[in-house]
């Protein structure tokens, strides 16, 4: 169920973002909505369900980028797997902690994306690709804050009360 919700939400958010960016102009910083979803999956989903959901969410971002290369599919699964390690060291509880967690995930995601993009483009340094990162990470943190109640609600709707016969 988390898989379906994640994929549907990713599709809706990416479509909405593409229209909003078009209306506001390309200068507008992008929001890594898929990283927010992958961060949530890393905290709440099982290994198999989360990895497959992250794969699909990354695939969607890859597809919506217009120039799909499998890079964002790989990065989504990678961020999910690294993100699963974080709760063993730090407790991530509440909207603010989740926003910080998503921002940290976005930093890693952006650094890796810039590095791999630089590997293929090989023009200028990766630094020029990182110029927009602070704004992007801040916007992603805000998106995480806004999406957290919605994601929690979806999760709560799937939890079955303990003690009932199944």
């Amino acid at each position, binding site marked *: 169920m988390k898989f379906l919700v994640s994929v549907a939400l990713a599709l809706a958010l990416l479509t909405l973002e593409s229209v909003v960016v078009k*209306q506001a102009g390309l200068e507008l910083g992008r929001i890594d909505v898929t990283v927010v979803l992958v961060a949530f999956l890393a905290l709440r989903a099982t290994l198999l369900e989360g990895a497959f959901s992250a794969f699909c969410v990354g695939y969607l971002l890859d597809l919506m980028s217009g120039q799909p290369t499998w890079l964002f599919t*790989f990065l989504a699964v990678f961020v999910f797997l690294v993100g699963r390690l974080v709760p063993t060291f730090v407790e991530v509880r509440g909207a603010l902690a989740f926003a910080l967690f998503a921002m940290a995930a976005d930093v890693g995601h952006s650094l890796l994306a810039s590095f791999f993009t630089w590997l293929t483009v090989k023009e*200028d340094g990766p630094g020029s690709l990182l110029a927009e990162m602070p704004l992007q990470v801040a916007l992603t943190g805000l998106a995480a804050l806004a999406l957290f109640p919605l994601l929690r609600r979806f999760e709560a709707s799937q939890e079955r009360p303990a003690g009932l016969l199944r």
Partner: protein
Amino acid sequence: MWSLLKRYYRPLFVGFLLLFPLVSFLLGGSKGRGTYFVDRAIIAVTSPVQQGLTSAIEGTVAAAQNYLDLRGVRQENDALRLENLQLRAAVHALGESRMENARLRKLLNYAEAEPGPEIPARVVGVNPVAKLLSVRISSGEQQGVFRGMSVVTPDGIVGQVIRATGGYADVALVTDPQSRVAVRVQRSRARGTAAGTGGGPLRLENMLRTEDVEDGDLIITAGTDGIYPPGVVVGRVTNLEKKEHGMFQGADIVPAVDTSKLEEVLVVGSPYSAMAPGSTAEGASK
């Protein structure tokens, strides 16, 4: 073997999910992958939503703008009427020149390349990845748009179609870091390459130091890359760097088209490449 697979199927499956895209990217990432059936299905679902949202937003904005525009419309009408007279005179003069040009070409048996079709399209969305600059337009294979065709506006060059599906296509902008366009200085006919930098001005490359180029020169497409038709405006030269040593000089090109505020575009067929489904376009992008 079976028991091993059964025991380790979780790490094996997750490992596959991680390594398959990585290996695919490393082996052919720079060229990009093809369009699968599932891609077409997803685009067929999301693109009408994008178009609907875009139309709704633009309709609302236009309604508000129309009301504001009514103010001072009479003075503007007078100015436009005057301008219209001047333009009609200019068009008449150009028509004469065009006919004379055609007669002279005929006399010289000059073989002219057939211009390709011009397919209008609306921009319905922008891709959500900041590092790759592309937009989605509302014309695709059904309208005769295929990968490799160039996209322009009356002001100048916009980009190149990188993927076309049923009724939609994705266009890589000239400002994308992977974009390369063969260009020429209109005044001196000097040739070079316009490279995308990821936003803002383009970079003029491969222009020999001895070539005649100045700040403010108009840059047009050369048509030698097999993608863009010749003579389309790219932009104007600025920040010219003439070095003492080295083979090349550098400069920035301010694009003639503000790609961040695109509304309608024209997809034009390249006169050089076959415009068929599955045709590739290697010329303008690395």
